[in-house]
């Protein structure tokens, strides 16, 4: 038995293997799709994520069934916690749901493809460079796409700004309108506490070519995470001026804000 298959046998129980096989993806003959998704690597990745999801962050998920089972959909959430753990946990929640699971694709920072090993690994697990063309092609492919419209403004913010939504880009709304994709808002609570950062050293980040350089302990705290999925919001594809698009974005932002408040209210303790 090779090392790879040994690790897989330890991490991926038959049920998870079956669960991922049940999710149909348009992949080529060697198990890849154009963005680099690979079902075998995803199985191992999800084996590890399951431990994080169930044991480490003890994620409490509500409303995951609100994500439509088929067709294009944008899952829009608040971004927090320096590392893209929120995307990973949302992805797992949807892939592991009992009834008609889906394997969503997360849009990641432009910085990741330049990082050796990590960039490829994220791609193999379904994450995709956050480019509007990628998102458009995926929606055209009937995929569920996880988007964080705050981008690094959200994930790189210091602990003092926790649960404050930063500016949302409008790009996701244009794509949702064009591809007739419902938007499912998600409020993530708990990820802010996983890596609390005091500040961001911008000159250091610039020097190292990183999106941000947080001053934080090199530990990921086992904060309890709450994921609240909201009702899908549907927007028509009328030719409207940018201010009205921004208004629609504000509606999504407000929905996420409400879901965050619900999560904060439901949370009994940090850990």
């Amino acid at each position, binding site marked *: 038995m090779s090392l790879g298959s040994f690790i897989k046998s330890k991490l991926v129980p038959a049920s998870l293997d079956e669960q991922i096989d049940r999710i149909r993806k348009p992949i080529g003959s060697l198990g890849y799709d154009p963005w680099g998704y690979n079902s075998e690597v995803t199985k191992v990745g999800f084996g590890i994520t399951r431990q994080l999801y169930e044991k480490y962050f003890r994620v409490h998920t509500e409303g995951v069934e609100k994500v439509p089972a088929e067709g294009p959909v944008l899952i829009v959430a608040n971004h927090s916690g320096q590392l893209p753990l929120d995307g990973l946990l949302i992805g797992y929640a949807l892939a592991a749901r009992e009834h008609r699971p889906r394997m969503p694709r997360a849009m990641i920072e432009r910085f990741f493809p330049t990082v050796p090993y990590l960039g490829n690994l994220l791609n193999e697990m379904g994450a995709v460079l956050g480019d509007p*063309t990628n998102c458009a092609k995926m929606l055209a492919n009937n995929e569920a796409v996880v988007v964080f419209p705050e981008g690094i403004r959200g994930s790189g913010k210091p602990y003092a700004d926790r649960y404050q939504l930063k500016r949302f880009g409008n790009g996701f709304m244009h794509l949702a309108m064009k591809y007739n994709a419902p938007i499912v808002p998600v409020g993530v609570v708990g990820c802010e506490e996983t890596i609390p950062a005091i500040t961001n050293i911008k000159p250091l980040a610039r020097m190292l070519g990183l999106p941000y350089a947080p001053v934080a302990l090199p530990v990921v705290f086992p904060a309890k995470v709450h994921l609240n999925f909201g009702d899908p919001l549907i927007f028509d594809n009328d030719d409207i001026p940018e201010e009205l698009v921004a208004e629609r974005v504000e509606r999504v932002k407000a929905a996420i804000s409400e879901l965050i408040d619900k999560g904060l209210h439901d949370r009994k303790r940090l850990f």
Partner: protein
Amino acid sequence: MNQPRRPQILVTGAAGALAQRVINRLKETCDLVAVDFREQVYLGDDVPTYCIDFNKRGFEDLYRRYDFDGVIHLGRIMSSQETRMRRYNANVLGSQRMLDLCHKYGISRVVILSTYHVYGAVAYNPALIDEDAPLKAVGLSMDLIDSVELENLANIYLWRFPDLNITILRPCNIVGPGVRNSISRLLASNRAPVLAGFSPMMQFIHIDDMADAIVLAYHKKQKGIFNVAPDDWVAYQHALELCGCKRMPILSIPPVVPKLILKALRLKSFPPYLMSFFKYPVIIDGRLFAQTFDFKPKRSLKEILRFYRENKRPI
């Protein structure tokens, strides 16, 4: 009884494996003339071949002697061959001369083979690149300038002289028996360099499928630019593994390190200016071509990689 006149076609790049396959497919129904500026080749008694530089005056004599209906221009010098200057002269100036002659002699069909390299491998590339995406290769390396310039030139002629019916094909990696490009050399070798931690997605098209695509494109007068790639993808390092190729990791960061190593190694199959193609993916969308020309590749990715596994050093 009068036989209908057979179409006469000029095929360039005759010494290459691809041109020879295209010629084999067309020679039953068309009269072919093959040229190559690298070497004189023999392609049978019924196909006259010439070794001639497009920039020389004698090239026009071919147009005078034969009454060409169409030109299939496959004779692009690849970026791993010759010097920059010679490539520019042949690929850009030579092609311009050829297109001028096509216009002068009333040719009504031109198919030009380009490459997906023109899109350039940059970290921010989306997957499934469309034909209208910007050509970023020039920003990466001076060595890819002639490829992009050839495209620009063909584009100008495409719009300026619509009667030429120019079709530009941008194929993904062409591989298979007899192919001498850098990726084919890599897959055929026993050991191949990889950039540690980078395994970009790649697309491969079998040389026979590519020849079919060129013949299809030639027969249907649909001008424009088309990507040619199958709907199948594999990561570079996985492809090497399936070809039975040992991987030699090269330190990949900071970017100047692998560049220096590759410059020192001077590998023909892994030139430093193609380094970014082994780091970032350039996945093209071949659906427009497939729909327009009713094209479906027949050889699977597994079959292609198996060929390299079973035929180490087939060239």
